[in-house]
């Protein structure tokens, strides 16, 4: 690589979250960062979205919790986490001291729980933003997911925005008929950016045992298998909303990341890919930088959404 062109500016602003580069690691796929420290400089990652946090500790689902599928995997972790207080006391200070750009990910079973979680995070040092996992069952509405109904999405986002000054990114579920309607509702409620997509709901059956492989029966499909669906949704939403998009789903290499950026994503998130290549996020940062130099691109803004017809 010749240095004919000055080092490109990789920084992006994701709805108020200032990222040194456009590559985040996705919630639930990077633990609280420490697990990956042996393999990669976690402070160099654009943003580290920590494991989903609930108000109180959750043991998670029975095992088996994961199973591989063609070019993908299913997971039904069941939001195992130690609860928000333990997160704030034991994990966050360490990440903050290391200068990691942390995005918290919160999940509730009711609007009140989301509100309480947002309030609890408010004013905590070292949190750059809040990702709202709205793919949890809404217990008040009989278990239908928050993320599948525009009105509920509006209410959750609006409520959380009222509790916090931090940038708020609702994380959209792909298991919907009309992703644009959901995105619009989130934007109207004041979302600062959108995170998309969460996993597709799927399952696997063990023919030998004549039962579902996952103890939870259903699980979330992630990995390269879902990339075409994720990319399509980012492309559709980018044309209809004004707020920035954190795009991801199946990103395994720099080219995949560029596809999302060309579809309209301001930044990208790496999930399952971390398991395969622990250094993937930073390899992609490097790859994007090389691409920008080779094509004399000063800022990603220049190619963001360029594939949209």
């Amino acid at each position, binding site marked *: 690589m010749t240095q004919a062109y000055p080092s490109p500016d990789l920084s992006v602003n994701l709805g108020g979250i200032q990222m040194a580069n456009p590559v985040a690691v996705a919630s639930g796929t990077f633990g609280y960062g420490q*697990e990956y420290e042996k*393999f990669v400089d976690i402070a160099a990652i654009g943003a580290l979205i920590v494991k989903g946090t609930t108000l109180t500790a959750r043991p998670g689902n029975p095992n088996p919790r994961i199973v591989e599928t063609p070019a993908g995997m299913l997971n039904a972790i069941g939001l195992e986490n130690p609860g928000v207080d333990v997160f704030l006391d034991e994990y966050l200070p360490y990440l903050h001291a290391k200068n990691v750009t942390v995005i918290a990910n919160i999940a509730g079973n009711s609007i009140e729980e989301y509100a309480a979680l947002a309030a609890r995070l408010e004013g905590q040092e070292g949190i750059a933003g809040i990702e709202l996992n709205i793919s949890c069952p809404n217990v008040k509405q009989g278990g239908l997911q928050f993320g599948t109904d525009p009105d509920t999405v509006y209410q959750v986002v609006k409520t959380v925005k009222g509790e916090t000054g931090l940038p708020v990114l609702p994380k959209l579920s792909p298991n919907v008929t009309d992703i644009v309607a959901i995105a619009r509702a989130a934007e109207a409620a004041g979302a600062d950016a959108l995170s998309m997509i969460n996993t597709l709901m799927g399952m696997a059956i063990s023919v030998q*045992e004549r039962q579902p492989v996952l103890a939870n029966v259903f699980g979330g499909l992630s990995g390269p298998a879902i990339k075409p669906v994720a990319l399509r949704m980012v492309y559709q939403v980018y044309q209809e909303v004004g707020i920035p998009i954190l795009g991801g789903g199946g990103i395994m290499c720099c080219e995949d990341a560029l596809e999302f950026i060309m579809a309209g994503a301001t930044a990208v998130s790496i999930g399952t890919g971390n398991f395969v290549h622990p250094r993937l996020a930073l390899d992609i940062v490097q790859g994007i930088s090389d691409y920008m130099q080779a094509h004399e691109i000063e800022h990603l803004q220049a190619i963001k959404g360029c594939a949209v017809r």
Partner: protein
Amino acid sequence: MLEKGKIIRHNQVGTDLYEIELAAGAIVREAQPGQFIHLRVGDAYDPLLRRPLSIYDVDAEKGTMEILYRVVGKGTKLLTQLTAGEELDLMGPLGAGFSIAEGINKVCLIGGGVGIAPLVFLARRLRSKNVELCFLQGTRTRAQIVAEQRLQAWSVDHYIATQDGSCGYHGMVTDLLTDENIMQGVQFIYTCGPEPMMKAVQAWACQHHIQGELSLEEYMACGIGACLGCARKLHSQDEFYVKICKDGPVFGLHEVELYEGRTGS
């Protein structure tokens, strides 16, 4: 640690059983018996995830390690195609290995099938500390017996049981536990293999008040405690789950509720 391990040797050693010797100096320097490596088979996205395989043996001087694997599915089938000179993408050494208690003079190692893999490395380490050991290996048939030569070289008492009687004792390897000539003086037990086998070992050890350790398996994604995928309750009435990849794969022999059939849930 991430390391590209060059394949030095790759050969079949039994029915569906293969050994790979890898140059992986950095991993070898840190490797402890009972730990595993997490390796990527091929570059394509099917299979997608890494595969966990125990460290079967190491040669610290040469900076090489070996794995012993059984072909069960698409990942291990693909693995058989790799040849000397090619590189494998490795993460490791991962997990909590066997503890080597001080002041123990004689131990028993019981492995079923490919479960002997971590026990061979453990045997090497124990022998280097002059611990006396009996190594009980159970397989279905003669063609699945491995590691005979190295165990002999380390002067390990090696007892074999085959289910079809084609070699050694005819029956389950755990039957050998009742043989007092073998078990005489054993102070600690290490085991790895199918859960029903380990359950029998556990029962025997419990009855004889002998401590020990075992190694568990579970589907894995990250291999390092980040994805929470390889969860398991040590006892069915526990509230929380351990992670096999990080809290294990090695656990205390009497710490775990084992199952006859499918891993309980």
